[in-house]
């Protein structure tokens, strides 16, 4: 048998030289460590500094978050008596409020069902290889109406007023509605801004510039208070609906500019080729220009969506109780006072999960649509 030790000797039959293992330190984890963490003096210093920093941060953080934390308690004093760490008992007791706001407890299954249906409606849109995608897409189109009926009630369900909406549910409603309606609206505005028809171009440009020139918080204030001055006395116009409209047009104006960037990046030759094939305006846009333009715009669009999702917390200023508002009101309960850190960490985790998934999906989409050439 050939010698398998690492010290090579010369007595092999020609052609039977054994495959030797690479020397230790040139393979596996050691190689990775050497290449990535200890490749130069500067990197060694950085690595050690980082390790020390992690050593300082992680154990106390872990202690606070999990090991010393109290998961079941009836009040802050009980929490303090049971452990030094985070008082998750507070979040546990208020989880229903954080999730559903003031939605009636016996009707909360409707919110859960809506969320389930949302997943079913979103999947065929996002995932190309889904079985029976065509049929499911029809469901996606119907979903906004179904969900509105489920959440608001009427037609056989007990009706629930929108002022009882709150918490993560409210964030999801504002985020999803804004995203779903602002994309088509933004695309139309972008096309309108490039239109040959002066009137349409002026209107679209005026709209975009006006909305972009005003902060979202101002639009929300207009929606919540100013509008009532202008409407005839006695007319009521649901506050949440007003907010949804404002959030949608705000994000549509931004989407429009992102898409316009994409449209302008499509070479003129593509337009001309479409014209040469005898395609009418909408056909050429749908088949040739927009697919390319939207592909380029994906990072920008997702960026706008993430921004919109996070901006939805601004509604707390006009008195809608999103998770931050619920947190603020809950923290005033003298039983639980002083647990602000827990509340904000909890809300931050929720937002991170949502926004990070959006960002990962956009990367997946970019890779899928990447056809090998960049414009």
């Amino acid at each position, binding site marked *: 048998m050939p010698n398998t030790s690492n010290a090579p000797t010369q007595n092999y039959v020609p052609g039977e030289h054994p495959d030797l293992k690479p020397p230790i330190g040139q393979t596996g984890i050691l190689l990775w460590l050497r290449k990535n963490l200890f490749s130069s003096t500067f990197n060694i210093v950085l690595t050690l500094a980082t390790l020390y920093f992690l050593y300082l941060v992680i154990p106390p953080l872990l202690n606070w978050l999990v090991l010393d934390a109290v998961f079941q308690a009836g009040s802050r004093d009980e929490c303090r008596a049971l452990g030094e760490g985070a008082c998750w008992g507070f979040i546990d007791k208020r989880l229903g409020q954080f999730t559903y*706001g003031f939605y009636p407890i016996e009707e909360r299954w409707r919110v859960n069902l809506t969320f389930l249906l949302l997943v079913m409606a979103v999947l065929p849109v996002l995932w190309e290889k889904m079985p029976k995608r065509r049929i499911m897409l029809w469901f996606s189109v119907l979903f906004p109406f179904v969900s509105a009926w489920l959440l608001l009630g009427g037609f056989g369900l007990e009706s629930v007023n929108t002022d009882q909406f709150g918490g993560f549910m409210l964030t999801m409603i504002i985020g999803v509605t804004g995203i779903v309606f602002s994309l088509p609206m933004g695309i139309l505005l972008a096309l309108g801004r490039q239109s040959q028809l002066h009137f349409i171009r002026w209107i679209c440009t005026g709209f975009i510039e006006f909305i972009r020139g005003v902060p979202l918080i101002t639009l929300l204030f207009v929606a919540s*208070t100013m509008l009532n001055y202008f*409407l005839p*006395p006695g007319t009521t116009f649901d506050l949440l609906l007003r907010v949804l409209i404002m959030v949608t047009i705000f994000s549509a104006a931004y989407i429009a500019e992102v898409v316009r960037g994409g449209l302008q990046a499509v070479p003129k030759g593509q337009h001309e080729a479409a014209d040469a094939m005898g395609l009418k305006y909408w056909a050429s846009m749908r088949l040739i220009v927009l697919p390319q333009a939207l592909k380029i715009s994906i990072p920008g669009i997702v960026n706008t969506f993430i921004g919109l999702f996070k901006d939805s917390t601004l509604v707390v*200023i*006009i008195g809608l109780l999103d998770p931050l508002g619920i947190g603020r009101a809950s923290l005033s*309960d*003298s039983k639980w*006072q002083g647990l602000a850190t827990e509340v904000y960490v909890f809300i931050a985790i929720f937002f991170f999960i949502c926004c990070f998934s959006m960002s990962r999906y956009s990367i997946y989409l970019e890779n899928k649509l990447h056809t090998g050439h960049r414009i």
Partner: protein
Amino acid sequence: MNLVKNAVAAAAASLLLGGTVQAGTLADVQSAGHVKCGISTGVPGFAFTDDKGDWQGFDPAVCKAVAAAIFGDTSAVKYTTTTGKTRFTALASGEVDMLARNTTWTFSRDTDLKLDFVGVNYYDGQGFLIPAELGVSSAKDLDGASVCIQTGTTTELNLADFFRTNGISYEAVPIETNSEGQANYEAGRCDVYTTDASGLAATRSALEDPSAHALMPEIISKEPLGPLVRHGDSEWADIIRWTLNAMITAEELGVTSANVDKMATGTDNPEINRLLGSEGDLGAMIGLDKAWAWRAIKMVGNYGEVFEQFIGKDTPIGLDRGINAQWTDGGLLYSPPFR
């Protein structure tokens, strides 16, 4: 075209007249089935949500009492949270029917902003909270201190007045809400936190070590806090005013939520009889039935009960009755008679 004209005319009219044309709030409230009540976004003891998700506290209690007087149902309230900045527009624009959120009764708010304060449910004053380790014994020694101050409030103006009159300087750290103020103060971003003394007591109770913080002896302002409505509907204002007065009078006369049922059958005190509707018909004069005050007291309690339940000695807030005692006990609470 006609429709557009009408809409424009109506919009112009409502713009010109502001919120003053909304007479008949009671009728609106009755047909809607709930009172739209503006409250704060959360002040310990004064407004907070409980574990079940209901609004509780000293301020929502007023909303509940009004709802009880009108509907006999304390849950017939639609709460709208308002910040210091949005509260008056919310009321003037008709978003809410009444505000019950520690709002100071001042001249300009009552007149220029076209609001009507219907009474005072808490006599407060602005104080200072500082860490005991600073070793300051008077607010006049606070020269150069950084002060956490809620924007858009009377406390902001009082603070400027106080430091100017005493010829000392300060650096304002603007904050939006009480919880923000507490967080900033705890993190040491300001040396001093100033707001109404009741709020400071509540904030102090929530700190890690309350004994390490002290309230300054100076109370630099008068802050009569009370519920308010918009100008132009005195009938509606009367209902709120007298619901509050009923709670105060009930305490004065010894009527509590526990004994109100027995008292309602008739007593030898004619004022109790008038209050609870067993004699005369005061309710009809404000558009309600005879038992309106009985319901408010039965379902919410008298002033003293509400005080003790949310902010009194046995709560973490631990406020003394102080000047908020009945006039018979040397306080300022003095309800006009029910006659």
